[in-house]
């Protein structure tokens, strides 16, 4: 044990040989390496941020226009003869008049207005004038009348959306040149649009209905909205969050703190990392088989979507949670056990709070990817056209058909009318806003549970 005296010192560095104020060659190299390393870090972050900016820029430049919409301010006479041929004002007879009838009424109103003001463009037929009005306007007018039959016979002011091509003209998407080739609009119609803009009937304004309207068919991009998708996504995120967090944290705690390290837990562990690797579409297959075909839950319902997304995000959250539990120093556990806390108390009083920021991060990341997921919803009927709002959760709204934001992005992106492309980007903006809110939430929560050791 007399090592200490057995040998001489390691070769001591020559005394005072080097001044601290001058760097030797090796030091220069090392500092260069340091600078390089730091630069790689900055470069890496820049790559991510630049990509992010490029993508956000594309999304925003394509999508902000979805929040504006051209509309026509019309004066409509609700002609009793046409709307209530029977004259008894009963709902039954009123509802006999279809949207086609109301459409004619609106077309007539616009043509009358033009005739009054002497607005006309050579080569635009009255029917083509009618094409200025969105196809959803007759339905809205009809609903107004059915809700209040008193209106019949009166002359009212009615704001109707302009059709997609006219709206596109005001946003610059449609030009005279493209209209010449376009089978859905003529340059003359655009000239007429110019006249109507001058006259002040055709105006563009912020479009709240983009956020509240339900989806619309291919023929009326102007009235398509995100109302149902937003509700569906909200319902699903709520359900996923309340299911995935407790289950994920509970499973992680068991595996990390209590499970004996044996074959069985190895199997679970491999299983979990494998589940994280399973493509999301497979969860759709699973959801279809278990929740719809076996458990008989309704298709297209947020509850099924949430269950599938829960199963899908669970492994991600378990992995993240376990990593942050593992990062809590063992001395903390010793300390708690040493004062006579049970293992359960140790975990819940000390370990879990310390792991909370990591758990939050993992959960938010998991939820964020669940929020943007389309593929599994494909198989359980949520990639659908749904026009009726789901009811409130208390009335079983989780079981009503709904869609989700990414689904809307996906389905609009594949529609043939180019007007849907801006809607698709607009939907992404809304999705990003959701994400932003979630991230802010995460930051706030993380601050509150900030590590203090």
């Amino acid at each position, binding site marked *: 044990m007399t090592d200490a005296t057995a040998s001489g010192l390691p070769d001591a560095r020559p005394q005072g040989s080097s001044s601290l104020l001058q760097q030797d060659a090796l030091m220069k190299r090392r500092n260069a390496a340091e600078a390089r390393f730091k630069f790689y870090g900055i470069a890496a972050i820049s790559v991510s941020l630049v990509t992010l900016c490029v993508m956000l820029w594309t999304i925003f430049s394509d999508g902000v226009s979805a929040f504006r919409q051209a509309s026509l301010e019309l004066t409509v006479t609700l002609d009793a003869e046409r709307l209530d041929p029977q004259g008894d004002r009963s709902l039954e007879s009123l509802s006999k008049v279809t949207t086609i009838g109301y459409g004619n009424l609106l077309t007539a109103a616009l043509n009358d207005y033009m005739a009054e003001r002497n607005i006309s463009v050579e080569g635009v037929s009255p029917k083509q004038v009618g094409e200025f009005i969105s196809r959803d306007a007759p339905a809205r007018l*009809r609903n107004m009348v059915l809700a209040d039959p008193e209106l019949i016979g009166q002359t009212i002011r009615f704001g109707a959306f302009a059709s997609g091509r006219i709206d596109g003209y005001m946003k610059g998407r449609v030009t005279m040149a493209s209209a010449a080739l376009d*089978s859905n609009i003529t340059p003359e119609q655009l000239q007429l649009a110019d006249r109507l803009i001058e006259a002040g009937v055709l105006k563009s304004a912020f479009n709240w209905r983009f956020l509240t309207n339900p989806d619309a068919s291919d023929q009326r991009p102007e009235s398509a909205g995100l109302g149902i998708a937003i509700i569906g996504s909200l319902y699903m995120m709520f359900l996923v969050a309340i299911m995935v967090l407790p289950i994920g944290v509970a499973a992680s705690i068991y595996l990390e703190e209590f499970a004996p390290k044996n074959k069985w837990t190895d199997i679970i562990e491999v299983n979990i990392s494998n589940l994280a690797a399973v493509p999301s579409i497979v969860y759709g297959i699973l959801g279809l088989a278990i929740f719809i075909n076996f458990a008989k839950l309704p298709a*297209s319902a947020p509850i099924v979507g949430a269950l599938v997304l829960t199963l899908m995000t669970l492994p991600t959250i378990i992995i993240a949670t376990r990593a942050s539990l593992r990062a809590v120093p063992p001395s903390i556990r010793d300390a708690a056990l040493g004062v006579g806390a049970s293992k359960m108390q140790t975990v819940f009083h000390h370990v879990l709070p310390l792991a909370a920021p990591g758990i939050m991060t993992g959960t938010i990341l998991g939820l964020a990817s669940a929020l943007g997921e389309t593929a599994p919803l494909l198989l359980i009927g949520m990639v659908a*056209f749904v*026009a009726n709002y789901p009811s409130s959760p208390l009335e079983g709204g989780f079981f009503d058909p709904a869609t989700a934001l990414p689904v809307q992005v996906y389905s609009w992106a*594949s529609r043939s009318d180019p007007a849907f492309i801006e809607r698709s980007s607009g939907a992404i903006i809304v999705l990003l806003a959701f994400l932003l809110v979630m991230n802010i939430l995460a930051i706030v929560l993380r601050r509150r549970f900030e590590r203090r050791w």
Partner: protein
Amino acid sequence: AAARDNVQVTGSSTVLPYSTIVAEAFGENFDFPTPVVEGGGSGAGRAKMCEGVGPNTVDIANSSSRITQRDIDTCAANGVTEIMEVRFGYDGIVFASDVNGPEFNFTPADIYNALASQVVKDGALTANTHAQWAEFNPALPAQDILVLSPGTKHGTREVFDERVIIAGCKETGAHALFLAVVAGDDDSAKNRAANGECTKLRTDGRNVDIDGDYTETLQRLDNDKNAVGVFGLSFYQNNTDKLRVATMNGVVPSTETIAAGDYPVSRPLYFYVKTAHLDVIPGLKEYVEFFVSDDMAGPDGPLAQYGLVSDPELAATQAAVAARTPMGPLN
């Protein structure tokens, strides 16, 4: 197990836009809730329909191809014994290129020569080395060959194979040459095998399968101005400002030429209704009738405006729907 109060429709993505247009109008004009319409593919749609009877199964399967015996058998095994077949129109399939590019006048033989992996040269089959359209048909522009054809998942591909590739194969004489070399027990087997040989497309990048939808094809066409893409007629009609359509055998595709049978590349569109649900699901009967009514599927209806080729025999379909005639065995 509360009873469902809305109609549920699923199936072909080609039929989806038509179906949503009808569903939307139906919701506006009737007191029933708007039907929920899903895409996801004809095969998947029919499979869902065949899962059984009851409120947790769908009512209608849209399909861009006719149902097969195998599906009917699956249905029957699951208790779906009566199905009503409704053919409501045709879908035209067109070739189109960039609007600023040259004009194309194709015959099926041109497409075959451009895309097949083996073509006839000097009376013998050789590997396809054509790089430009003009190489085999001087009437076509001297432009690099690049065709964006529908992916193998798409029903369009079936029509594309049958009406264009195999037709071209026969026109160029390749089919006969294949027949001579393939093995088979009888004539029909041989014929099938030869068809199979015909539909093998080249894999050197001149033919690009698009698994996505037509917007993707359009986007790729925008990236690659030389390309020729395959689209649905309705998609083309909504994007005439970006696309220049090619003629086939000298016929310009339009709802009229297709309805008249002049333009060869088209396919019928169907939906299948579970008759057991007809009186049970509120609005189902009305929806089906509304769909095939002249107001919707007629030649002046909104569907035709959107690009549907109206079925000349629509009246017969309306009658069959009114009578609830279930479909007979496949012929």
